[in-house]
């Protein structure tokens, strides 16, 4: 039997059993569409979370601090203002480093204003922080080294705060009261492209660390924020920093610990990949259910058609011819169902992604695995019963009711 004849017979058989063909196709399509859509949505969500984290700083970002996880905290002897300068000089892996003195909830208001004051996080730091945290200046300038040396009473505010405090005016050169101390606004940061921090409505202001320590009446530096020269140099930068700190602060009992954004990304990656696995398992069950449907339909089809198989054999069909026919039918249904499932799966992924505002990530592997699985199910359950029927003698098959 040549291919054209086989194709004709397969086509005739499928048309003759339209209902069955349609049901089988739907079963396969649902399974495949489910897998593709679910995995695409899961991976899209993962990508969104990762990009959110990347917005929080340079990918070469790292920080060194006491072991907060073990309950240690920084005191006035943990870091000195000279540490970051020295580390930058000594370690070739460290490009930038800024110390951070935090004022978690400071109040901010305009002079003579009856307005209620606002709360913001205060970062007392040095110019290097702009690279570590990926900050961009929209207006004016950022802190300079001379501001730090001079304990200058200047402040850089973020875009949200600028809008709240100066809805109409240019904030540059204006005075604001931070913890009742008047400071001059020298710069405004650009609004970060919709980040999670924004959603939580956290405002932040940046002042020279020297002045911040005076104002907050503390000498505690909580963290050193650094930027490594390259992604590969991050761990080198961390270990160099820790070594230098341990040498300079030999008297303290603190342990210095470094963290990188990379590690945090890895952790998030682990969590979301667990989620993706769970989601994938759910989708896999959908595929399995679709497969069982296909199996049932195929089994029924063959026992119904045992008589027909007997007749075809009586007319001279060889076992091979029968098998080719059933294989052809199974493959045709699986491919058609797979195609429809692919279209609906990809379409569904796009719709959900559009609604959730994240990119639909459709991996070719998901599509291939889903297709492969459905074809295997269709072929196996199409062929196994057909092979049983084809091994009966024609007389036995014809007696079958």
């Amino acid at each position, binding site marked *: *039997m*040549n291919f*054209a*004849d086989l194709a004709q*017979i397969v086509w*005739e058989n499928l*048309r*003759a059993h339209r209902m069955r063909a349609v049901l089988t196709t739907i079963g396969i399509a649902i399974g495949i569409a489910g897998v593709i859509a679910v995995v695409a949505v899961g991976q899209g969500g993962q990508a969104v979370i990762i990009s959110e984290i990347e917005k929080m700083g340079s990918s070469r970002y790292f920080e060194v601090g006491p072991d907060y996880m073990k309950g240690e905290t920084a005191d006035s002897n943990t870091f000195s203002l000279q540490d970051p300068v020295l580390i930058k000089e000594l370690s070739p892996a460290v490009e930038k480093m800024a110390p951070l003195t935090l004022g978690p909830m400071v109040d901010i208001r305009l002079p003579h204003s009856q307005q209620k004051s606002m709360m913001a996080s205060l970062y007392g730091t040095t110019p290097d922080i702009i690279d570590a945290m990926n900050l961009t200046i929209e207006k004016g300038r950022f802190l300079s080294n001379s501001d730090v040396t001079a304990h200058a009473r200047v402040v850089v505010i973020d875009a949200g705060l600028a809008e709240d405090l100066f809805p109409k005016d240019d904030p540059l050169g204006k005075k604001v009261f931070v913890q009742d101390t008047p400071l001059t606004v020298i710069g405004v940061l650009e609004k970060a492209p919709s980040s999670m921090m924004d959603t939580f409505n956290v405002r932040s202001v940046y002042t020279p660390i020297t002045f911040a320590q005076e104002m907050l009446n503390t000498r505690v530096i909580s963290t050193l924020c650094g930027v490594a020269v390259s992604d590969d140099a991050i761990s080198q930068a961390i270990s160099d920093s820790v070594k230098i700190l341990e040498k300079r602060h030999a008297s303290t009992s603190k342990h210095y610990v470094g963290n990188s954004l990379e590690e945090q990304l890895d952790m998030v990656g682990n969590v979301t990949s667990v989620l993706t696995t769970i989601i994938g398992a759910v989708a896999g069950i959908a595929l399995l259910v679709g497969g069982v449907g296909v199996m049932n339909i195929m089994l029924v089809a063959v026992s119904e058609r045992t008589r*027909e198989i007997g*007749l*075809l*054999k*009586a*007319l*001279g*069909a*060889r*076992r*091979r*011819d029968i098998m080719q026919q059933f294989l052809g039918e199974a493959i045709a249904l699986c491919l058609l169902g797979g195609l429809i499932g692919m279209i609906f799966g990809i379409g569904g992924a796009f719709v959900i992604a559009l609604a959730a505002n994240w990119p639909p990530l459709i991996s070719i592997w998901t599509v291939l695995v889903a297709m492969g699985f459905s074809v295997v199910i269709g072929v196996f359950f199409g062929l196994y019963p057909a092979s049983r029927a084809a091994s009966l*003698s*024609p*007389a*036995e098959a*014809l007696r079958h009711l």
Partner: protein
Amino acid sequence: MIRVVGLTKVFGSGDAAVEALRGVTLDIPEGDFVAIMGPSGSGKSTFLSILGCLERPTTGEYYLNDRDVNSMEDDELADLRNRRLGFVFQSYNLLPRHDVLRNVEIPLVYGGAPRGERRERAEMLLNQVGLGHRLTHKPAELSGGEQQRVAIARSLANDPLVILADEPTGNLDTKASKEIMGIFQKMHKENRTIVLVTHEPYIAAYAKRVLYFRDGEIVREEANDELR
């Protein structure tokens, strides 16, 4: 042409075993027209199935044109059924979804005949059985007699040596039966070998000789001297 020696067929096993054939020996020369009669369960249909290679005997020998059929592989048997044997069933066994022409073409498809040739041959055969005007009808649109004529045309598709007919008129009225037997008679005159199972003496009367089966054995043979 056909020679069987000591054919037996046992269905089932152990206590449930049923002996359908208990040693049938027979020679059918080329051009013979044999009718087989006998009560239900006498083994005549089983015998025809074995002659038609639809099933294998339990023991015994079967030679078709001096070739040992029992030793053949399944694929060789399929080829034999396709090219050398034509089978006509009591219930016609046409494929309901195909039109008449396609039904007759099926054995030609499995025989590997090219498309154009196959169509020509099927049309020619259907013309011979008087259905040239019904080529695109579905089997359900035809009368029983017409359906059986399609089945006969199908059995002739690959110009077989032997036509095996299992009660071909069993589902037909007398008039249609006579038309069908007219076709068998014509095939006999063209020197085709025919083996036909029937219950009806007036059908058996068309044959050159009649074999009577009882309990899986040939118990009597009659020659019809006078051919109608």
